[in-house]
């Protein structure tokens, strides 16, 4: 049976244990309240400390604050706040900057900066056979009586495996060259680009340098980190001429492919300037739960150029409306002529 002192000590230990276990308020800061002003300030600050292209794009972010801050007041509707934040983010003119709420996603339509440079139905109806091969994200077929391999990649959102690349390449090993059509490719998985380009490269080489944000200052970047293409020692390779077709819709991972193509002597860029998007985007969350992403790195080519606003083509060709009515893709025709 417990004595009185036994009870007292037991009670003391229990009370002390529970008291100590409840002292978390001494350790942790309170959450930022979910108010419009807090969300605005937080997002502006995150951009201020993390976005990587203020100087390159000549954006005065402090002036952006002055312009948008008066438009935000606590108590405004979620939709109104979203619109203000969307407009503020679009001052960065960056397709890699988005705000994601449960009811909308902000965007900057980089592809609208140039003409649509592809009509894939035109190609299917006039250039490809009825039974062209599909192994997503890859669509491929012979052109010019079997002399040219046509590879169409509309998106890198679906990963491209090395096995898929080798199987496709094995079909075209006797062609004179390849047309790699990435017009309208909005990007996706950058590792797929390396998978493909390693098989198309002739030798190990550096293709660009990356610099990643390493602090809140405008020029706080780590790096360079070298991006290397290296032909695999085993398996099929395709070192023949490759014409890469691009347009303003060629963005992000597809633009990285264009940067690599500039470095490879057997590759030629044909079409329109790409949409850029060479800053790797990274994400975060606002106090109200909405998420955002923004570019947090820079990509510099081996000759020191920053193509964030777009990789220019070697040969500029814009899709001709009059010719398309006749069933002719003049961008594709130019690429075929370069190979033949």
């Amino acid at each position, binding site marked *: 049976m417990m004595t009185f002192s036994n009870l007292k000590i037991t009670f003391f*230990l229990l009370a002390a244990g529970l008291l*100590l276990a409840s002292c978390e308020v001494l350790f942790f800061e309170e959450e930022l309240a979910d108010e419009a002003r807090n969300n605005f300030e937080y997002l502006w600050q995150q951009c201020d400390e993390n976005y990587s292209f203020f100087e390159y794009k000549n954006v005065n972010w402090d002036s952006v604050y002055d312009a948008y801050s008066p438009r935000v007041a606590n108590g405004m509707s979620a939709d109104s706040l979203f619109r203000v934040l969307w407009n503020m983010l679009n001052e960065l003119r960056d397709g890699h900057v988005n705000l994601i709420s*449960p009811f909308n996603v902000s965007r900057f339509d980089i592809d609208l900066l140039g003409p649509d440079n592809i009509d894939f139905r035109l190609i299917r109806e006039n250039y490809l056979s009825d039974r062209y091969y599909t192994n997503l994200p890859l669509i491929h077929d012979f052109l010019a009586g079997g002399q040219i391999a046509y590879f169409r990649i509309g998106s890198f959102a679906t990963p491209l495996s090395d096995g898929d690349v080798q199987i496709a390449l094995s079909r075209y090993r006797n062609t004179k060259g390849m047309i790699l059509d990435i017009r309208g490719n909005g990007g996706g998985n950058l590792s797929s680009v390396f998978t493909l380009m390693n098989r198309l490269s002739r030798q190990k080489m550096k293709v660009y340098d990356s610099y990643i944000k390493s602090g809140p200052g405008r020029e706080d970047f*780590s790096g360079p980190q*070298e991006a290397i293409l290296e032909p695999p020692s085993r398996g099929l390779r395709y070192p023949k001429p490759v014409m890469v077709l691009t347009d303003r819709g060629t963005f992000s991972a597809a633009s990285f492919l264009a940067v690599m193509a500039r470095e490879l002597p057997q590759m030629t860029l044909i079409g329109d300037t790409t949409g850029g998007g060479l800053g790797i985007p*990274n994400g975060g969350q606002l106090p109200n739960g909405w998420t955002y*992403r923004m570019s947090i790195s820079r990509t510099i080519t081996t000759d020191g150029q920053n193509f964030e606003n777009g990789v220019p083509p070697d040969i500029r060709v814009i899709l001709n409306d009059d010719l398309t009515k006749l069933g002719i893709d003049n961008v594709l025709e130019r690429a075929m002529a370069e190979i033949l």
Partner: protein
Amino acid sequence: MLQKIFLCGLTWVFVFPMIAFAQVPQAERGNEHFLDVSASIGYSAFRDQGVSPILYQGFTVLGGLRYTMENELWDFSVEGEGGVGFYEATRLAVYETSTIHVGYGGHLRRQFWASESARLRYEGGLRLHGLVNVRRNSSLFNAATGVTNINTLFLSNELTWLVSHREKTKKSGRTITRRRPLSLEVNIPLLNVAWLPDYAYITDFTDGEPSTIGEHKLYWGGLRFQTRLSYRHFFTNGNALRFSYVSDYVRTSETFNQIDFINHAFQFSLVMRLH
């Protein structure tokens, strides 16, 4: 310098016991060895300020093993645990994040004081505990996965009260003991070090793949505080059941990527006497 102190503490916790136990053969109560198998569930809150100011709340389920060796003077243990946590935050929508936890550590404590009846005693020493936390929140794009590792060297204190203590001699002549100790363990941080993602929360992607742990950095400082209120019910065969209320507060140094973690758990353990 801090690294040296930390390594010394680590050595003290894990190497010194061998020397210490070798030097106490004269202790009246011989060395006792126990293996605890435990399961716990509790309320948790988690915030990774590198990517979100929101304190996610939910529950964590953990399973663990602990080896303990103790005698009248010394108490030594090594332990490991693993489990998962599911947390959410409700705003205009419900946002979710999950974590995988792996914990490891141990302590070495010496008895410094006991009451005349030996029913109340105090142990003090060092405790080392590490926590690996893999956070997954798919809405955070390239920062969807965050791996953190937090290690703390504590000044470990335990006050134990024998709520009930009986000795009985069986017909066979063997003396059996029934003990029911209630303990309060309080661990105060001496050194805290966290291995956290670098500034951009995304690292080497030159091969096209961001590396989750490519360029983490060590951050010294922060706070960590652990308490354990436990009640052990020993059976006559030396095995026991243990019911514990465990709390753990973690706050890494005040940087852009500060991690906050709170865990309040009820733990149930089967304590098996090894010989």
